[in-house]
């Protein structure tokens, strides 16, 4: 197969293509189980395999994919045809940043392959969790497990040959119940990074049981709580919402394709302009953000991206100043040319596709915030006069240039004079992105820092759902509108 792919790549090169690559997925498997109120509603497994071919011709991309590998020649020809017609409407001819041609491989750390674990054991796990969640006050309880295993072989016309084997484990428990007005409230636990590996070993029964007990307790507190006041207060975001704040208002805003206008037809643009790199004060001095695809054991660490560029750890925001973006080989060249200065030294290795039948685009890796020096969560609460601690996403809606946002959360704890006073329900907060990050007044230490996994980040047309991570501490922001 590799030999055939290499031959086809060479053939298109000889026909005039400037660059060709092929991603062959010998397999991608998924196993998804979902239990709802004791009913195993979904017991799904899937398997797919195929090849996606990307061709650059006269500055334009063509792409084609198929699960039918019996006629590779036709598949490559189709991709080439698609590039030829795209070359009729080019405004900035695609150029690719330099890279080394690598022969390499990557395997995500996994101790117990979840696909080798019998279905009964997975079902028994869900059943045990369902019993833990089945408590007074809980009307709806769900548990879901999502396992992914894939092998990707990447070959390109520059001589790269990279093989990846990736295993992912995502798990979630959720409960909901109604208050006296019949309004539903939810509390969720989502598995993040634990330890050095992720496989079936992540499914630690004791740990999940503790989390199940906690979310039931907290949901019942919310159910019987007073509504969140409409107020301007300091908000203290726990990692369970801090990761999403980072994702939506830093991660997506710093994807270079968005900044250059490549997502305007759908997902939107970014308030960030090319002239902002190196000068824009994105946040307070306490804010240091990095795109770290070298973080051990996270879905945002994948060894090599789908341009064949090695994973990197790059600063995005340095003590509040914008310095970097999430980039692939194509966009950095265009950005440097448009800015008439060398903003980016090369690809940051963040071009990824969700499946063999989708084209790679700029995706977040692990977009992390460095831990700070403001102590533990208790320390931050103690140093807050009037605030609210928030956790768990319920709803998120962000302006099309990522310039403003509105989040609803699962739970809020009001803080008065350095003490947690009470739980509130229907907590929300909103703000303007830059104003918000510039109001960052406390960043928790290592003890507050957690790596959250994301399994459902959507972007692009056709849409691609991507897996990634966020390592974030507890953070406090001053003077934020809540309860609206």
């Amino acid at each position, binding site marked *: 197969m590799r030999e055939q792919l290499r031959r086809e790549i060479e053939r298109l090169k000889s026909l005039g293509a400037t660059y060709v690559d092929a991603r062959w997925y010998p397999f991608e498997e998924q196993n998804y189980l979902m239990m709802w*109120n004791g009913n195993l509603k979904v017991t799904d497994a899937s*398997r797919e395999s195929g090849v996606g071919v990307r061709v650059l011709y006269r500055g334009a991309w063509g*792409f084609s994919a198929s699960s*039918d590998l*019996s006629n590779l020649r036709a598949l490559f020809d189709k991709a080439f045809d698609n590039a030829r017609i795209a070359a009729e409407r080019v405004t900035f001819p695609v150029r690719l940043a330099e890279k080394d041609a690598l022969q390499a491989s990557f395997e995500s750390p996994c101790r117990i392959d979840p696909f080798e674990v019998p279905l009964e054991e997975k*079902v028994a796990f869900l059943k045990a969790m369902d019993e833990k969640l089945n408590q007074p006050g809980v009307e709806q309880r769900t548990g879901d497990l999502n396992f992914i295993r894939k092998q990707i072989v990447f070959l390109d016309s520059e001589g790269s040959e990279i093989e990846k084997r990736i295993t992912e484990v995502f798990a979630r428990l959720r409960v909901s119940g109604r208050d006296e007005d019949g*309004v539903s409230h939810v509390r969720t636990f989502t598995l993040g990074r634990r330890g050095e590996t992720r496989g079936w070993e992540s499914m630690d029964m004791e740990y999940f049981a503790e989390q199940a007990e906690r979310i039931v307790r907290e949901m019942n507190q919310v159910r019987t709580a007073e509504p969140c006041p409409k107020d301007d207060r300091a908000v203290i975001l726990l990692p369970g919402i801090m990761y999403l704040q980072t994702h939506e208002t830093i991660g997506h805003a710093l994807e270079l394709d968005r900044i250059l206008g*490549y997502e305007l037809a759908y997902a939107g643009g970014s308030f960030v302009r090319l002239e902002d790199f190196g000068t824009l004060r994105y946040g307070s001095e306490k804010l240091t953000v990095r795109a770290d695809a070298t973080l051990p054991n996270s879905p945002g660490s994948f060894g090599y991206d789908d341009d064949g560029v090695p994973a990197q750890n790059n600063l995005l925001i340095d003590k509040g100043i914008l310095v970097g973006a999430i980039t692939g080989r194509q966009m950095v060249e265009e950005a440097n040319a448009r800015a008439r200065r060398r903003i980016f030294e090369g690809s940051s290795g963040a071009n990824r596709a969700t499946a063999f039948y989708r084209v790679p685009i700029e995706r977040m890796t692990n977009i992390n915030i460095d831990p700070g020096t403001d102590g533990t969560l208790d320390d931050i609460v103690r140093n807050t006069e009037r605030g609210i601690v928030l956790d768990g996403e319920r*709803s998120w809606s962000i302006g099309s240039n990522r310039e403003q946002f509105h989040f609803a959360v699962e739970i809020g704890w009001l803080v008065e004079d350095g003490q947690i006073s009470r739980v509130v329900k229907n907590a929300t907060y909103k703000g303007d992105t830059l104003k918000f990050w510039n109001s960052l007044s406390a960043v928790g230490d290592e003890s507050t820092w957690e790596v959250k996994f994301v399994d459902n980040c959507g972007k692009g047309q*056709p849409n691609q759902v991507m897996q990634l991570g966020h390592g974030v501490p507890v953070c406090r922001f001053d003077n934020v509108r809540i309860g609206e």
Partner: protein
Amino acid sequence: MKDRILQTLHDLRRYAREKGYEVSLFFHVEDSYLMRFANSAISLNTNEHLIRFEATAYDGRKRASYEMITNLDDVEALKTGIDTAAEMVEHAMPLTYEPTIPVLPETFIDESNWDAELASVSNEERLAYFNTAVKGLETEEIRLSGIFSNGTNVLAHTNTRSEHAQYFQTSDAQITAVLSHERLKWEVSAGQSAQRKTDLDPQALRAELAFLVKHYREDPPQQLPLGNYDIVFGPAATADLVRIMNWIGFNGGMMKRGYSFLKEEEVGRQVLSPLFTLTDDPTRRETFPFRRDFTGIERKPFPLFERGVFKGFIWSQDEADEFGAQPTGHTVMHNSLVMAGGEMAVDSLEELVAQRRENDLLYVPFLHYMNIVNPSQGVVTASSRFGALLLKADGSIAIPYNVRLTHSLKTIFGENLAWLSRKTVPHNTSSSYGARNPTAVIVPRFLCVNDLAISHSNDSF
């Protein structure tokens, strides 16, 4: 294609029966083409030919599914898929109810939604459409973005209890064109939904874009003061609100789970404005309808709201099984939602702008990133985007920066609903997640809601 798929289903069904399995078998075949534009160039030109096969095995109260992307020639792989599902179901856990395996009453083949001409639109034609739609509107600074997505979608299924199969073949196209100013950052857009090639009308798209571009170039931008406005929604915004209602409104399963803003005791009551009538109408070809559901029930127009009176919940077979309800023919990949028009003789943007008015009107054609703040209160939030206009009482026009709206669907479609255009239009609501599933909602061309607060107002584009 049709004969091959039906024959393969027939062979696989026979295989499953010989093995003593209880299974349902489902093919999804798509031939998808997408030309994507950005920065006035073709940023991506792609096609996918994918065959998905799903086998769901049943064993009394147990159920398990296996899905694969495969090709029709590989019958052995398909059989292995069925074996895998059958093996999985042995280890599944019984449900608290017995899932129904429907007996399909007859072979049903529906190709009436398929237009060979639309399905086979070429690369050259997609490009020509766009070149016409934006002719003379692009400049160095005003750049084109958009998509031309079209394709053929086939769904075919049977099960071991049915001698018959059902087959649905649809063609569709979804077009979005955006013109944006690179430096000033404003954006306008127009869209089209096509079920036949004759639905394609690049000139109409051009006229709409040209009208908006003219105003965006000539009229002054403005940050709107927070407060209440009479807001006119365009079809994209209205369709998005209706789409959310489809999810957290009249869906029986969601209601039972506490994720609906409608309650069982509200059936038969006045819940929304007397101006609001909504029907699931599979006779409307523009909605890419299913005329049978996947249990073989013949789908007929199903009233959801009549003049604001809530007529009833919809039930898919599985939700009906679980909650002891009667299935309503809604075991489908999407509904065919049609919102009735009103009395207002305002059928185009030019007419809306020219209309005499006593108050300022905020025109919001598109709602970006809608999310559900609270499902049981029906509260949603989103920001305006793409071609909003402030139509002032004195007849002048300003270009508002984007604003955020956070409201309950009961407010928007309830007492504050002021008027609806008599003209209705289809708005394509297809997403490109996962398998192709063309959908469209038919909505009034304009819908006006009085006295809605804006809760956030941007200070620039």
